[in-house]
Structures are given as C-alpha cells and as structure tokens.
C-alpha cells in the first residue's frame, strides 16, 4: 500500500489581479416560507376573533408582530460581493493554503455564502452581515501555477429571513502561485565552464583559481606573480625568474528543460482527466516546477547562469542569465508552464548553448522526452534527467487498472534504464533529491577536470 506523499513546502505567492464587484439589480423578494407562516398567524388571529377565542387569536401574535416589523424594514438596494484586491491579503495563510478576502456589502442583515473551487463544492455558511463584512476564504491546496482560489455565490437575506435579495453574480478569485524553492547541497556542473570569471575553477590559465603550474617568467606576466622561493632554488643567480600561474575562474551555463506535456497526480485514476487530482496531492508538474525552481536558485546563488525551456510548448525560452531577477523570471515562467493542447513533436531538440548542462524534468511516460535527452547527450552535453512522477497510489485500483499501471511502470523503467545506458544521469525528485544531486556532483569531481561526467 502506498502512502500519500507529504506536500512540498510552498509559501503561496500572489500575482496581482483586479477583482471588481459585478453590477446587479438590487431587487428583494419576500421569502415564501416566512410569508406564508406570517399569513397563517394572521389567519389564526382572524379565526380567533371570529370564533370569540382569544386563546387562538394570540397564538401567533409574537411572530406576527415581528413579521410586520420585518416587512416594514424590508431592505432595498443591491447586495454586493467581491474579493479584496490581492495586495491586501498577500500574506500566506498560517495553516497553509491560499487565502483570499471576501467582502460583503448591502442592506441585508444576513448573507448566505456558498464557496466552491473548480466546481467542487466547498463551505456553505449563513453569516451575519449588518451592512458590511469581510470574510477570510481559505483554499487548502499544495498546487502551484495559475489556479482558482474560490468562487463565491452570495445572497443577501433580510431581517428574520423574511426577504431575500436576488443572488449576487458569482465572484471568482484567481491567482498564480509561484513554485517554492528547496535548499540544495552540491549541484552537478557541465562538462565545460565558460567565461573568465565565475564561481568555479576552470582548466584554462588565468587568475583567481588554484595553482596551475610554475613557469619561467615571460613578457606579460605580472611581477607580483614571481615566486621568489622557486626562483632562488632553480636559478640562484637570478638569470631566470619563475612565476606562479593559476587556473582561471569560470561560470557554468545550465539549461532547465521542463516537460509540461504531462500533469499527472499520484492517483492513476485521475490521469484520463475525468477526475481531478486532489488538491492535497502535488502533481508531476508541481514537482517539476518546484525542482526546477530549486535548481535555478542553487545555481544562481552560486553565480552561474541559468536558462529555462519548455519541451511541451514551442515558445521563446528564458535565455541563460544570472542574478536575483533571473530567478524571479524563471519562477514566473515555471508557474505559467502548463499543458497546452496537443504537443508538437520535436524533429530536433531545442537548441542549448554549447557546453551547457541540461537538466530535464519529466515523467518519462513516453519516448519523446527520453529521445530528446539522448540527442542532447549525443551532442556532447552533460544531461541530468529528473524524474518528477509522484509515488503512485494503487491501492484503490481495480485489477485491470493495476495491471495497466504495472505495464506502464515496466516500460518506463526500461526507458529510464536505456537513458542511463546512454550516459544520461538520473535523479528521482522524491525522497532526498538534494543527496542524489550531491552524489552526482561529487562523482564528477573525482574525475580529472571539474564537471566532466562519467
């Protein structure tokens, strides 16, 4: 039996979105049940008077008086509902999830508020309003990307429930949740480093790195590089000077490639699309977003250059760049990454800078992503494949479905084994991805030349 996975830590981040109240008629109508009950009290009063029975006449006296009072105070005017602007509730909910603020305003005293999310029913409450009120709305989800927080159906209710307003038009709050980043340890580097400065030591001669060799002084060498000890030992008469030469510093170029063609949850029954994945389950695309954002942060914090491409949709990639703003750019692009229609087949893999490290995030449920990764590897790139398929929950499946999942898993395992045979390094984004990435990074360091894969 497979257990549900712990959701990834993800503080929700909001993107500003304007939400305005819709116009409405402001018509109030008497509630049928209450009006009829008041009429029955009036009938009792009449019957009691006609029959000379004071005890019958007073039976409904109190509700009748209150009904007349409620009728006299029947509200007039529109009852409005809207979600507060995103800036006002930008703080994440302490209990996790997404938070929005629903504002109610109108002449009623109560309001019936029914919230739903992606057409799945949520809470249904009858609250006291008295002209205006704000209500926090909390959606429990671990999903990232563009999504609906809640849709609220609101109806104003008059005094004692005697009258009801026309239902306010449904109001919806949508947002884009940016993926969070997890802190990683060491990260693998590409086969070749680029540039003349950066966080890594290259094999080229230069400055800033470790000792490369000791060489006779030549025109162009700086005098402060002269190693006087070596010079004294090798040339006591100072006919020749020796200088210490160092390795140059360089930066790595990393291209993150997200396969957005699949967005599957841990329950295989949801893969056909008829059932939606549970909001508490992170889908493969959520995991891909989180993994890519974490790696981007790790590389950018180290001073490397990171770019982003999408295997599922042909659009302009995020070119490699460095700095904090590049991380923001990548996180936003990741959040907006979603399956879009029928994905086009790639005749050639997307172009990546020469010598770049390619990190591909995919479920590897079909051959396309594996084929593209192999092509990159053949072209000489170091390729790391990150498997983002969640741990599957098969306990509730029928036998035939379990068999289908088993066949799919076997095919996928074969495909990934073949990838490893081709020289693609594999990481599973599940239990301890930071440790797996550190193993990859250290494996490369054991070989001559930093970042050269096996």
């Amino acid at each position, binding site marked *: 039996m497979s257990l549900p996975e712990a959701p990834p830590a993800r503080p929700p981040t909001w993107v500003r979105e304007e939400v305005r109240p819709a116009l409405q008629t402001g018509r109030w109508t008497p509630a049928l049940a*209450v009006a009829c009950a008041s009429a029955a009290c009036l009938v009792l009063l009449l019957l009691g*008077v006609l029959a000379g*029975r*004071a005890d019958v006449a007073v*039976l409904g*006296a109190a509700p009748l008086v209150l009904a007349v009072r409620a009728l006299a105070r029947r509200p007039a005017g529109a009852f409005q509902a809207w979600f507060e602007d995103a800036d006002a509730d930008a703080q994440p909910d302490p209990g996790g999830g997404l938070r929005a603020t629903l504002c109610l305003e109108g002449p009623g005293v109560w309001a019936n508020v029914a919230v739903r999310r992606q057409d799945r029913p949520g809470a*249904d*409450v009858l609250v006291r309003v008295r002209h205006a009120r704000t209500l926090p709305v909390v959606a429990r989800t671990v999903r990232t990307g563009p999504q609906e927080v809640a849709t609220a159906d609101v109806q104003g209710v008059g005094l004692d429930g005697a009258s009801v307003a026309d239902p306010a038009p449904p109001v919806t709050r949508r947002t884009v949740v940016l993926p969070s980043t997890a802190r990683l340890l060491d990260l693998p580097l590409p086969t070749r480093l680029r540039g003349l400065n950066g966080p890594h030591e290259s094999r080229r001669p230069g400055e800033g790195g470790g000792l490369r060799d000791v060489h006779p002084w030549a025109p162009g060498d700086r005098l402060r590089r002269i190693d006087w000890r070596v010079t004294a030992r090798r040339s006591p008469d100072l006919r020749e000077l020796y200088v210490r030469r160092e390795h140059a510093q360089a930066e790595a170029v990393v291209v993150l490639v997200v396969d957005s063609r699949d967005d599957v949850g841990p329950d295989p029954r949801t893969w056909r699309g008829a059932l939606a994945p549970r909001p508490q389950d992170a889908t493969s695309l959520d995991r891909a977003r989180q993994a890519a954002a974490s790696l981007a942060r790790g590389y950018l914090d180290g001073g490397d250059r990171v770019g982003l491409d999408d295997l599922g949709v042909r659009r302009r990639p995020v070119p490699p760049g460095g700095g904090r703003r590049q991380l923001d750019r990548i996180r936003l692009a990741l959040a907006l990454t979603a399956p879009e229609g029928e994905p086009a087949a790639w005749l050639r893999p997307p172009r990546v800078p020469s010598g770049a490290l390619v990190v591909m995030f995919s479920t590897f449920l079909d051959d396309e992503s594996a084929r593209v990764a192999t092509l990159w590897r053949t072209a000489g790139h170091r390729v790391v494949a990150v498997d983002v398929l969640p741990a599957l929950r098969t306990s509730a499946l029928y036998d035939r479905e379990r068999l289908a999942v088993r066949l799919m898993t076997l095919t996928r395992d074969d495909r990934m084994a073949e990838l490893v045979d081709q020289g693609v390094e594999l990481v599973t984004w599940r239990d301890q991805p930071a440790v797996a990435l550190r193993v990859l990074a250290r494996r490369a360091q054991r070989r001559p030349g930093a970042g050269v894969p096996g």
Partner: protein
Amino acid sequence: MSVRYGSEGLGAWVLDRLGPAARAPRRRGEPPEVDVRTGPTVPAVTLRAALALAGVAAVVVAATAPGRAVPGSVLGLMVLVALAPAVVPRLPVTALLVLVVGVRLLLAEPAPPLVLAALVLLLHVVLRLAGVAARTGWRTRVEVAVLRDDLPAAFVAQAGAQGLALVAGLASGADAGTGWRLTGFVVVLGLVALALARPVRPWWRSGE
C-alpha cells in the same frame, strides 16, 4: 471471478456504468477544500433537529389540550406536519403547522393559561427557527450571531404575547362580548393595512 461482471465483480461493474465520478475518493471527515472563516457556527442539521423538536412539542402540547382526544392516526399526521419544516424548510409547511395547531386549539376546550403560554412560546420558536432554516441546506453552517440577531426584539414580542396569552386565558372562562370582537377586528384590519400599504418612509422611523 464472475463471468458476467469480470474479475472485480458486480460493484466494479456498477461503478463503471455510473461514470468516473462515482469512484472519486470519499472525503468523509476531511475539511472542505475551500472554507470560509466565520465566528462560532452550528450545523444546519442541529438547527433543523431543534426545529423538528419544537414543532413536535407544539403539536403534542396542542393535542393534549382539554377537550375531545385526538385519534392516533390524526396525531401521527400532525407529527408528520410538525417534522416537515425541518425537512423542507423552504416550502410553506411551517404555515401548515401553525394552522394545524391553531385549528386543534379551536376545536378543543379553551386552553389553560400554562398550556397557552407554552404554545405561544413554541410556535414563536418554530417560526423563528424556520425562518433561518429556510435559508440553509443540509451542509450549511449557521453562524451563532445569526441566531442571536435581533434577539431583544424577539424577547419583547414574546413577553407581550405572553401577557396577551395571560389575559386571553383569564378571559376564556368568561363569555366573549361584542367589545372584544370589535377590538380584535380593529387589530386585524390594522395589521393587514400595515402589511399591504407599506409607506416609503414609515412615520415611526422618521426620526432615524
């Protein structure tokens, strides 16, 4: 293994024909996916149970009024009518309950003051709860503030009604005179006129 229904049996066969939504995981005990944070609330089921209880109590008190005993079948029907507002509160069944109680009291001997006071209170509780229940579904949570809303006015009205009930109880022994009937008619006409001809700005609220 069943030949007709396959290896998963009849249950799977039925669920397959009901569609994928029938196999959606049940979420009993789980909080709703999207929630609204309010003050203290009570479930609508509790409210409806209280409504049913008050309705049945009103019917039972009315049935035990002095006079000819109510047959068992009629009492059963009366209890059903008393339960109806809790089940279908949006339909005008509360009016039916009020009429049933009133007609029963009309057919019985004049009620003692204590019975009358209890009936006045119970019918008021039923009508107040029915007004709230009519705005709820089975899953609705009702804020306690809604139930407490405008409670002083309800207490004042109830106190007045109890005073009238006391007077009515005392007067029930005496023969009803023309003056009483005339007063009653004036009250009825006044209430009807007030309900039908609602001024745009009532004179009693002109000072607000």
